[in-house]
């Protein structure tokens, strides 16, 4: 038997270090490489898995047409675990090992805020596809960041227009998950609504923790307050659990249910083939059945063919992200010069599945936030997208320019932070 040196642990450590070799960095030269991060495990897993498929569809479409300027697109995916520290590490690996040309993705705003730092330090463009915190485009803005989906301010602004038209909505109650997204989505809405209406009143609020399994105590408290409308800022499974638990209390007969940012996502409609009440007022960043354009229908059809299910809104965000990058590279004629790309991308227009006829989404130079219309609808019976039996209908559409913060507001918000 050979003798082990006493410092074998040290040798083991060295071996482990050397094992960390990414042999396959050579491909980067030819292809346009996108390093994507999405949550694929845990509660936000559906958003991540759908985003992956959405991005792949865009990549396949583009590559089938010969790529961009003769270069193919390649996307690397890694679970973000919805964890900022881990995602930062992945982003750093993408940049230094995989030599990616772009970073893309991220569902959680906290992860987005951490990754945008990496993007800034390394001058690698980061395209946000599905995190909504307004901080990324205002206080924490940096030139290499772009967002291709609506932020919470845009949903909230559209929601305030909608609520302003409902003269009978006077008493409001809000319930939402107790973290920045939940609070900010509500606060922007309430601030804007109060500017329009003097006769609205907040009769109560509740902030259960994110992913709270049991809302019964909150539901009884809400019923006691007798509001005209219940605003909720839940997303995903929390909306589902809340509705299921509120049903026997006939909460939906007693007040309007209003979830204007993530509530109208297909995952919710699909999760409740029975029991979903009519007349819930909801919205989402993308709808399967609106707008009724060829582009949207094609996207939904392709997604269904690829995965066997209908997409939640995150899929269209990722699809848009890949097209945004491809179009930027095409116009700039390079994938390697970030500053040239920024100059092109910040003035870019791009037609997306969520754009109705006569409108094209465009990037705003001051905050790199995409400008899009927002549609709010209510649940109506519709069996065209099984297993859902209800879809949104009676859409009210809000003009893109009306629902973004003014450039002066952006400047003021940035100044306020810098003091």
């Amino acid at each position, binding site marked *: 038997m050979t003798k082990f040196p006493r410092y074998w642990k040290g040798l083991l450590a060295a071996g482990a270090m050397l094992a960390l070799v990414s042999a396959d960095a050579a491909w980067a030269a030819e292809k346009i490489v996108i390093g994507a991060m999405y949550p694929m*495990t845990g509660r936000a897993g559906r958003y991540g898995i759908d985003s992956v498929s959405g991005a792949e569809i865009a990549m396949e479409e583009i590559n089938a047409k010969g790529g961009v300027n003769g270069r193919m697109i390649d996307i690397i995916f890694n679970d973000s675990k919805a964890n900022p520290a881990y995602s930062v590490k992945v982003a750093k690996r993408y940049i230094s090992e995989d030599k990616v040309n772009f970073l893309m993705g991220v569902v959680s705003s906290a992860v987005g805020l951490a990754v945008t730092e990496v993007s800034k330090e390394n001058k690698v463009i980061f395209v946000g596809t599905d995190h909504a915190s307004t901080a990324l485009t205002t206080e924490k803005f940096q030139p290499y960041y772009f967002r291709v989906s609506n932020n919470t301010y845009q949903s909230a602004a559209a929601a305030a227009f909608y609520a302003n038209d409902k003269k009978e909505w006077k008493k409001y109650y809000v319930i939402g998950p107790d973290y920045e997204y939940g609070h900010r989505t509500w606060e922007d809405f309430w601030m804007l609504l109060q500017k329009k209406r003097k006769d609205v009143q907040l009769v109560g609020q509740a902030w259960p923790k994110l992913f709270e399994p049991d809302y019964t105590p909150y539901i009884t408290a809400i019923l006691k307050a007798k509001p005209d409308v219940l605003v909720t800022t839940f997303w995903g499974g929390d909306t589902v659990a809340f509705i299921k638990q509120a049903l026997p209390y006939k909460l939906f007969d007693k007040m309007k249910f209003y979830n204007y940012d993530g509530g109208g996502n297909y995952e919710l409609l699909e999760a409740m083939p029975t029991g979903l009440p009519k007349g819930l007022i909801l919205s989402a960043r993308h709808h399967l059945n609106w707008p009724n354009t060829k582009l949207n229908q094609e996207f939904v059809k392709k997604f269904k063919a690829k995965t066997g299910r209908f997409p939640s809104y995150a899929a269209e965000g990722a699809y848009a992200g890949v097209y945004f990058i491809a179009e930027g590279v095409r116009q700039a004629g390079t994938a390697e010069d970030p500053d040239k790309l920024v100059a092109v991308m910040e003035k870019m227009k791009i037609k997306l599945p969520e754009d109705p006829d006569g409108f094209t989404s465009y990037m705003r130079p001051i905050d790199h936030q995409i400008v899009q219309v927002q549609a709010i609808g209510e649940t109506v019976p519709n069996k065209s997208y099984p297993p859902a039996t209800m879809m949104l209908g009676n859409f009210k559409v809000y003009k893109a320019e009306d629902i973004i913060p003014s450039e002066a507001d952006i400047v003021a918000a940035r100044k306020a932070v810098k003091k």
Partner: protein
Amino acid sequence: MFTQLIGGLTSSMTLFLVASGLTLIFGVGNVFNFAHGSFYLLGAYFAYQLVSVTGIGFFPGVLLAALCTGAAGAVMELFFLRRIYGRGGEEGFQILLTYSFILIIDDVVKMIWGTDYKSISRPEILDGAWTIGDLFVPRYDAVVIATGLLVALGMWGLIRRSRFGRNLRAISANREMASSLGVNVPVTLSFVFGLATALGGLSGALSAPVRTVTPGAGVEVIIGSMIVVVIGGLGNFWGALVGALIIGEVTAFGILFLPQWAILFSYAVMALVLVFRPQGLFMKQGVAK
């Protein structure tokens, strides 16, 4: 106020069903089963499979789901946990082993059923609610409360009145002694694991119609039920019942007065109990020492 009380009671009973299994395993087996929430999750998915896909009816489906979960739990004990009993630093290894099951079960669930939210509709007769004056009791909640009470009663009978229960108490008091007195300790332990995880599975199956069935849902449950178990006294069956009632009602009323700090309520109660009465509020009777 009464409606608030009933609301709290429903929360309590679901908590109790999960926590009862956790405390049973700790009391008899001296194992802290971190993966207990994952068995809750398994129960919910089994119920989905049996009720919504196979269509064997709601109540048979829920029962069978609980049994299947119990079988999975017994497998974990029989083939894995058993191999680390009595090892130096066992408590740390227990945490690791059960934690590895959280990861494995989460991914297995994702592989089989995907990441979309699954749903089970409750039987139609349980859809509505009873109203008595101001009091409002959803029928399904009543079933959950009744099941919780039935389980509590049944477990009382099993632990206090049966030969099996006597064995449990003996093992819990002194494993070697029980063994020398002719109790078949290994078989009893596997059975306890099966029973306890079946309770977790039952709770998951019963929750499926009113909660979200999705990977990752087990983790939220484990911390909540751990708090309940600590408050009641680790390994104490009745303590778990009272602990669940306390946490359910503290949350139900706490949110009326301090809605902004709901996130801290249960931890604060747990810390208070541990500081002032670490053995739990009810550590006289029960399965454990």
